[in-house]
């Protein structure tokens, strides 16, 4: 018996969201009196043994050329084989793009009850109940899982990573791997920037910026804070900013430590994608802007004056000029 954590990688590096999933998985293992193991597919450049820090005792690594790119069908069969070998009773994914592709498939394959968007450790005695985010983070649901094997996809930034001591045993696992049916022909990365879903700090701006030519100050603020940039939907629709920056109900949902909203009114559909943020700062010239109701800190003022001052003050704090 074990808890099995799926380790997600990009360019051979373990994703931050997977460190959260490992910490979470090892806590569940403690709770149900078993050990936490993990599986990683495809090429890895990081030192896997050091992932023992997150409570993982054993890591199954499956390397095979057919696993160089994600084909959910192929990956699912491999994870199912590892889950079987590990005697996994609980399987944990991060609820990120790859998790969303693989975890539900695995659920159907193993006929194992699946809860996506988990935000806390499960209640495990009695039964097995997971708290998940619903209604675009406007509410939570407690979902009970009735099957012997349970699959959970943990929301990124919902569970704090804890690193202690420990090394993991890494074994290379021989799986049957089907040839992929999905052929990846091109990959475009928002290079050098912080990916939006993993960012600790996000600087976001809306129609209040008047036009794309004014984004310099937004980017400067983001750079100063090592933050990712985001925008409201009309801004992406007007092509002021790329589509992959659009956050909200119909865009990306994020949960950074700090979300800074500049010239965004705070429509309910926008809030749906950002209200899991720990701290929200709103800069808006209209004191009646609905966003202030969802904010922790705010400045009622003109973004064109406030944002450059804000950036300067942060530089001063960080001792750069």
């Amino acid at each position, binding site marked *: 018996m074990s808890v099995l954590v799926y380790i997600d990688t*990009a360019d051979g590096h373990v994703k931050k969201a997977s460190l959260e999933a490992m910490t979470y998985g090892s806590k569940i293992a403690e709770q149900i009196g078993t050990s936490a193991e993990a599986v990683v597919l495809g090429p890895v450049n990081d030192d896997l043994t050091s992932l023992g820090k997150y409570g993982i005792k054993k890591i199954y690594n499956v390397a095979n050329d057919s696993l160089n*790119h*994600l*084909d*959910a*069908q192929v990956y*699912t069969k491999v994870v199912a084989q590892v889950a079987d070998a590990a005697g996994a009773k609980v399987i944990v994914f991060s*609820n990120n*793009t*790859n998790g*969303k*592709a693989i*975890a*539900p*498939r*695995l659920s*159907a*394959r193993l*006929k194992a009850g*699946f809860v996506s968007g988990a935000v806390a450790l499960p209640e495990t005695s009695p039964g097995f109940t997971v708290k*998940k*985010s*619903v209604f*675009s983070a*406007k*509410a*939570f*649901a*407690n*979902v*009970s*899982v*009735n*099957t012997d094997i349970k699959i959970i996809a943990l929301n990124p930034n919902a569970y704090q990573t804890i690193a202690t001591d420990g090394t993991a045993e890494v074994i290379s696992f021989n799986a049957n791997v089907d040839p992929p049916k*999905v*052929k*990846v*022909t*091109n990959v475009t*990365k*928002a290079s050098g*920037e912080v990916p939006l*879903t*993993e960012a600790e700090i996000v600087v976001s701006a809306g129609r209040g910026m008047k036009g794309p030519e004014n984004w310099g100050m937004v980017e400067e603020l983001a750079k100063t804070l090592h933050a990712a940039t985001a925008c409201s939907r009309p801004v992406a629709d007007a092509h002021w900013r790329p*589509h992959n920056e659009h956050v909200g109900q*119909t865009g990306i949902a994020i949960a950074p430590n*700090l979300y800074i909203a500049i010239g965004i009114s705070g429509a*309910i*559909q926008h809030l*749906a994608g950002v209200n899991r943020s720990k*701290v929200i*700062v709103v800069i808006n010239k209209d004191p009646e802007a609905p966003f*202030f*109701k969802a904010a922790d*800190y*705010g*400045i009622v003022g003109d973004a064109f004056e406030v944002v450059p001052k*804000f950036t300067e*003050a*942060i530089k001063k704090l960080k001792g750069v000029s």
Partner: protein
Amino acid sequence: MKILVCISKTPDTTAKIAFTDNNTKFDGNGVQWIINPYDEWYSLVRAIELKEADASVVIHLVTVGAADADPIIRKALALGGDEAIRVNADSHDSYYVASQIAEVAKQGSYDLVFTGKETIDYNGSSIGGMLAELLDLPYIALASKFELAGTKAIVTREIEGGEETCEVALPAVISCQKGMAEARIPNMRGIMAARTKPLKVVEPVSADSLTGIQSFSLPPAKAGVKLVDPENVSELVRLLHEEAKAI
């Protein structure tokens, strides 16, 4: 080319989120129901565009729901599907719902199945993947572009911090999100035509439910915003650093 588009019914994006029956049920009182935005704006409209480009494309819609889903499926037909199937069952268990759709998909032998990225109420993001596994078909999640190329599809999907373009042989299951298409408004002709399009109601097949919602809760209310004078921006930086420990 036969396309199956999965349509779900969700509360309007501005609906008040409240619960009844000792916090075990969503309070639908006064709530307006809509087609889940991902199903409408992205997957259905993209399917309609494919039909516009090639008149031989046939679009079927499927929803798993009670009779109160009929207005939603009629609206989807008004936008452009050819016929609709409603599986007469009310469930929030993804495996149960996916099993029902899988049955419909098997009966209709489709070349392509579109789902939305997720429902905006239960946020499962799971029906597409489960369906693909039940049908043993390739699955591309979170697609933002979709083109047909003979018996293949060329799909762009979201990956962490970027996008990836891939080719996949059909049949396949695709979950759709922003970028696939632009939202449309049904026109009068479509609304009239929808009245005579077939809406078949079928009874569910037997399938297991693997999960159950026990209760709901609402997040604690925010303490209220702390406003900082625009002439004193460094105070905001101090608060973020010392009080919120966010920078």
